[in-house]
């Protein structure tokens, strides 16, 4: 693990679909499900990305093209050097009979979680949703490892609709005792409305604008508890999320303003 800046050549690139790619780097440190790295594109910017898998001697991150930075990453080729700092943050726990709910690129951190749950011999079920089929990355892996439900906005894969639509039924049918979530914050809000009444414990992998990633700038602190998402998070347990007074609300941008 290294917080000091070091750049590594991209070893491999996989394109999952338009504007969704995985990048692979030499595994120079151990990493656990839920942890993230800061990716520096020299001359451009540096932003946090969850590690989505550890394959052989490579670590993988998966990026969806949103704005300037992620779009810049899409232009990178094998051999180009990117700064990789980390791993940062706090991991997922490993529970049995869990449901993994992933939305869009949020599926990335669930991929490595599934890897670890499998290795730990835990049973788990997956519920993955996205706008279109190709945004559901690693679909086949998830199916290989456990029962997997899909939803897409356009019905191009699995059921047309949102992951929350059949959530209750799946929870009962699959005898789910624990929930892991990763995706847009609006998804967490909706999921909580459903599962809080049912008293199911859970962990969500959250995102906030991050600057330092090492717990000193305060950029990622959550209102309510003051918890630093980059250190105590990005994976938060039910109890911690309950303390967050800004969930689903405006977040802070680079200046610290809520936008």
């Amino acid at each position, binding site marked *: 693990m290294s917080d*000091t800046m070091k750049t590594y050549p991209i070893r491999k690139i996989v394109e999952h679909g338009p504007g969704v790619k995985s990048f692979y780097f030499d595994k120079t440190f151990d990493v656990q499900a839920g942890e993230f790295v800061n990716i520096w594109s020299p001359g451009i910017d*540096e932003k946090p990305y969850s590690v989505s898998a550890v394959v052989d001697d490579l670590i993988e991150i998966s990026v969806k093209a949103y704005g300037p930075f992620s779009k810049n990453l899409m232009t990178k080729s094998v051999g180009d*050097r990117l700064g990789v700092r980390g791993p940062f943050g706090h991991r997922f726990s490993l529970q049995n009979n869990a449901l993994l709910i992933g939305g869009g690129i949020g599926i990335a951190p669930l991929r490595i979680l599934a890897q670890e749950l499998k290795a730990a011999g835990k049973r788990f079920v997956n519920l993955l949703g996205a706008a279109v089929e190709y945004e559901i990355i690693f679909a086949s892996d998830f199916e290989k490892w456990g029962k997997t439900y899909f939803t897409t906005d356009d019905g191009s894969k699995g059921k047309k609709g949102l992951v929350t639509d059949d959530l209750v039924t799946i929870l009962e049918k699959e005898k789910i005792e624990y929930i892991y979530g990763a995706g847009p914050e609006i998804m967490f809000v909706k999921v909580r409305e459903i599962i809080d009444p049912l008293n199911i414990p859970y962990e969500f992998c959250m995102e906030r604008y991050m*600057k330092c990633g090492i717990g000193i700038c305060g950029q990622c*602190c959550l*209102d309510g508890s003051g*918890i630093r998402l980059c250190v105590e998070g990005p994976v938060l347990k039910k109890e911690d999320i309950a303390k967050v007074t800004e969930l689903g609300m405006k977040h802070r941008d*680079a200046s*610290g303003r809520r936008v």
Partner: protein
Amino acid sequence: MIETKLLDLDLKSPLVLASGILGLTASSMKRVIEFGAGAVTSKSFNKDWRTGHKNPSIVPFEHGMLNAVGLSNPGLDEMIKEIRQYKEQCNAPIIASIFGRSLDEFGEVTQRAAESEPDMIEVNISCPNVHSEFGQPFGDSCPDTAQITQIVKKHAGKIPVSIKLGPHGPGIGVIAKVCEENGADAITAINTVGPGMIIDIDVKKPVLSNLTGGVSGPAILPVAVKSVYEVYKNVKIPIIGTGGVTKPSDAIQMILAGATAIGVGTAVYYEGIEVFKKLNDGIEAYLKENSYKSTDEIRGAAHE
């Protein structure tokens, strides 16, 4: 036994969260108090919000840290809200750190900041990351320092004012004296050192988006201790000794050099947010071992 009186403020610990570290929100500053700080300093803010420099803006090296956040801040209005919120939830003193790009802005920001009734106003005239925009830090010039101190005092009302100095310029002792003569109630020393630069030898580019950044952390401790020693020699007003404090012995060096309170910033990275408790325990242990009742008995002792 580590309770400390900073001017009229009662601190449960001499440790003060340094400006720019976890100082953006009420919740986060409250949390730092829960972990053992005696007071907190807000992130420096000016009139309008600033996005600051792109990342990488905060990068550790083997012996410290470089930062060029570029005084990013949510601006006056947001920060005043946070300070008010903090005061509702927490009764440990809070120091509002302010800056401006012009004399007038210093005055205006002070006046507005004062409305939120912070326990102290700290004036950052020494940030090395904003040259391009402001030229050399104001704190490197005696006349500028005098004018800023006056205008801030004029608008701060009864709220005490500390001027935050850097290690550079014409000599920190001289500048501190200028601050005192113009009405400053305290001195915070020091801001970051340098600035410095780290170059990645593989991509052959400076790592910080701003190219250069101020140096903080263990590497600057001796420069900070020396600065506090100089200030103590030159003025009577209390000092918030800041720079590189990571271990209890570092904090004690600061007190022996003449510091009343001790600013802690980068150590939050090296030691975790628990650093405040660790330092408190270490300072207390030292006082006990040498059978002192409080830090007052050893303040400035290195001058004898």
